[in-house]
């Protein structure tokens, strides 16, 4: 193996990359765009919803429920209403966005065994999206309240082993600040794997398509030198991209990396290796840039978006889909990097994920080698 030859390939690859302004733009614009999208969503996060209450019951329970609402950061109490006739003008003048009406029988119904306690919410529907979000908030608030009451009953009745009901409604189209932090590792995963798989496979297939690969094959360059030379520039670019997103996350969303930077770097490197091997695999299978691009996007973008746990929690997927999620290395990276970034996990906590990533990489490496040997024989 010769460093000089690998260097020649790396330099050439960088030169081509830097000359392709359009591609560079996409490469760096794409993550910024995604991040911006989430940032925008956060700005639209509906907070401090002005709430007015008409408490006809005025019981301990009703006051408690109101307290739950206004103790969250989503609602602020702008006042109490005394008469029905005040409701309409309040909404019309947009003094408040939400009015809660507690009926007189709320606490008595609540206390009954098969009672039907009800609450009335009046939502300002001018902004449909906001109304929808408010709707979601109060539903989950009500469910939480339910849960609290139920456990309270259970405890009173001496039953302690009732499974604690844990409502975790997640509004992925409208993430809260916390959710965005949660999304950043997934975003990094997606950027890294798309950059690695698409760039590496395209750059290899381009040489096949244009016939320049023959010229390289006949030189003293061997396969390993060739692949190393191709991989290094894209690892650098992907890393740079990942770091940019991380920094943007710190600046925009107050993200703090709880765990070790070194461990994060190691995990990222292993993940990138998996992505690059996947890219090589694609280039072995595809003979034209178009086909390569299609396969690469299909293999990298979609699974890392849908199946990695990036936006849709894996736990809540049907069992069969949960198994399918293993096809993307992003799944393991997302889990591992979330643990490192958000929880400050150490090696032992993410050991399994790292092993999976390594196994994944080896699997595709072997597959790529086998297919290329078979193709060579046919050629």
């Amino acid at each position: 193996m010769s460093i000089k030859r690998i260097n020649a390939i790396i330099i050439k690859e960088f030169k081509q990359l830097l000359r392709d302004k359009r591609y560079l733009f996409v490469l760096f614009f794409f993550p910024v765009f995604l991040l911006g999208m989430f940032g925008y969503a956060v700005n639209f996060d509906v907070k401090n919803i002005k709430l007015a209450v008409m408490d006809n019951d005025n019981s301990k329970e009703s006051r408690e429920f109101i307290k739950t609402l206004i103790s969250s950061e989503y609602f602020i109490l702008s006042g109490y209403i005394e008469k029905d006739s005040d409701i309409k003008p309040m909404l019309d003048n947009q003094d408040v966005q939400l009015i809660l009406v507690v009926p007189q029988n709320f606490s008595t119904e609540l206390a009954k065994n098969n009672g039907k306690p009800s609450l009335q919410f009046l939502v300002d529907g001018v902004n449909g999206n906001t109304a929808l979000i408010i709707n979601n908030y109060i539903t989950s608030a009500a469910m939480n309240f339910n849960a609290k009451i139920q456990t309270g009953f259970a405890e009173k009745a001496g039953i302690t082993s009732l499974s604690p009901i844990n409502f975790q409604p997640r509004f992925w189209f409208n993430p809260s600040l916390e959710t965005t932090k949660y999304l950043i590792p997934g975003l990094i995963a997606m950027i890294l794997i798309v950059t690695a798989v698409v760039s590496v496979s395209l750059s290899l297939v381009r040489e096949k398509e244009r016939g320049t690969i023959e010229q390289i094959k006949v030189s003293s360059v061997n396969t390993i030198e060739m692949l190393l030379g191709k991989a290094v520039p894209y690892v650098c670019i992907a890393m740079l991209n990942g770091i940019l997103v991380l920094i943007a996350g710190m600046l925009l969303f107050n993200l703090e990396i709880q765990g070790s930077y070194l461990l994060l770097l190691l995990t990222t490197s292993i993940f990138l290796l998996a992505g690059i091997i996947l890219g090589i695999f694609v280039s072995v299978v595809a003979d034209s840039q178009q086909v390569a691009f299609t396969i690469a996007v299909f293999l990298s973008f979609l699974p890392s978006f849908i199946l990695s746990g990036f936006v849709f929690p894996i736990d809540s997927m049907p069992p069969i889909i949960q198994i399918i999620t293993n096809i993307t290395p992003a799944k393991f990276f997302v889990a591992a990097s979330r643990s490192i970034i958000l929880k400050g996990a150490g090696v032992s906590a993410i050991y399994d994920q790292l092993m999976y990533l390594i196994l994944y990489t080896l699997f595709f490496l072997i597959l790529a080698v086998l297919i290329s040997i078979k193709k060579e024989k046919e050629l």
Partner: protein
Amino acid sequence: MHSITVNNLTKKFGSFVSVDNISFNVKEGEIFGFLGANGAGKSTTIRMLCGILEPTSGDALVGGFSINSEPDKVKSSIGYMSQRFSLYNDLTVQENIDFFGGVYGLSGSNFRERKNWVLEIANLKGKENLLTGLLPGGIKQRLALGTAVIHNPKIVFLDEPTSGVDPISRRSFWDLINQLSEEGTTVFVTTHYLEEAEFCNNIILINAGKLVAEGTSEELKTNYINHKIIDIECDRTVEAMEILEKETFVLDTSIFGNNLHISVLDDVSAKKSVLALLEGKHSFRIRKIDTIVPTLEDVFIHLIEKG
């Protein structure tokens, strides 16, 4: 001294035989022409000789190394300009040269010297920073040849280096090939242009993977054709050809520029018959009718139609 020795080389793709048991030798320092129609198996043969395609059977020694057992040594002793050779169009002249010098492991003063040489033969001195994609075809071809032999190999394989290049550039490209050969490099070249074959010291012709003729162009013209070629200059050439084709004394017909070539066994009696037929019966105007030395094209048409 032979710099290439090919023994019973065969390449099959599935059941399709692309190169069929061919054997030949190439002398050191000569320009060796490898001719054949589209799909005859030229590129396949070259790729095997360059050590990048494994033969199905047979072997060859290239620069003294076996393509089967020492493909890496073969690679390091040759230069190769593939048929689809495109330099990197998105790199500058300088960057292309640097890249190919780099992958051949050149460095230091030797590299600088060779870089200079490449720029010189491609007439690109002072234009190192031009994008390669913007160069005219002829210049690009010379640059491609330069980079293919930047490591100064003893043997160079050129797969249709002049296809798609204008005649003047082709001419000067051949001057370059001659120059390489004079400096002692063995040049193995394929071409579609038969007039270019005349510049080769030795030629082989393959058809459908089989070797059908070999020798110097003079040898080919005398050894492989034992009948006479008559060159006819007349009006309505195509029509005349259709008439003559039906005659039993005419073995082959072909059109050469504006003229008609027919091959016959007895040229004296044939000329009389042609005159009688065309001028007498069909009132063509024959301006010239001569027995000529066959061109390579006559030979190849004859051989391929026979095969």
